């Protein structure tokens, strides 16, 4: 069973073919807070650079990431996600 971070990575790679991708599991920062679960894997930061973001607004870039994640983006799976989406030249 792939970890949540591995599933996030696989979906973003497949949909956006990123030049670089970093996925940080922030779940430990949220223990005791609503949305945190035993076993973690609920809070993530995704830093992604992809040529696919060229010419897209910030909203459109982030929407593209949400779309790539599909059903992973549910409160009982990914509870919270920080997204930094840029083009490769930045």
């Amino acid at each position, binding site marked *: 069973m792939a970890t949540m971070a591995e599933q996030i990575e696989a979906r973003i790679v497949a949909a956006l073919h990123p030049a670089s991708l970093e996925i940080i599991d922030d779940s430990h920062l949220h223990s005791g807070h609503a949305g945190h679960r035993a076993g973690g894997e609920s809070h993530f930061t995704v830093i992604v650079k992809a040529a696919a973001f060229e010419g897209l607004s*910030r*909203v459109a870039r*982030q*929407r593209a990431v*949400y779309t790539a994640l599909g059903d992973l*983006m549910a409160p009982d799976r990914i509870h*919270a*996600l*920080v997204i*930094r989406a840029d083009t490769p030249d930045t």
Partner: protein
Amino acid sequence: MTDPVQARIAHLVGNNDVVLFMKGTPLFPQCGFSSTAVQILDRLGVNQYESVDVLSDPEVRAGIKTYSDWPTVPQLYVKGEFVGGSDIMMEMYSSGELDAMLDELGVARED
């Protein structure tokens, strides 16, 4: 728009210069991202805005996700337009774009 919840959201967004859909209230945010959004508006001197606590309104909590095809809260609207969530607010605040946009759109602010 026949869905009453979508109509309510459209009414809120259409009749207030600045609307923040959030978890909790500006005084007592119930989520770190909502708290960030409130602090950004505060720093920019936006002190008269409509805040909607989605935790106390399950219909709006569900409806706001489809309204802008955006799966998360907070969500900021200025002059009827969806601006983004807390990541975008933070990026635009840091770069000065949010400040410039509020000026451009003539949003009332405290000096």
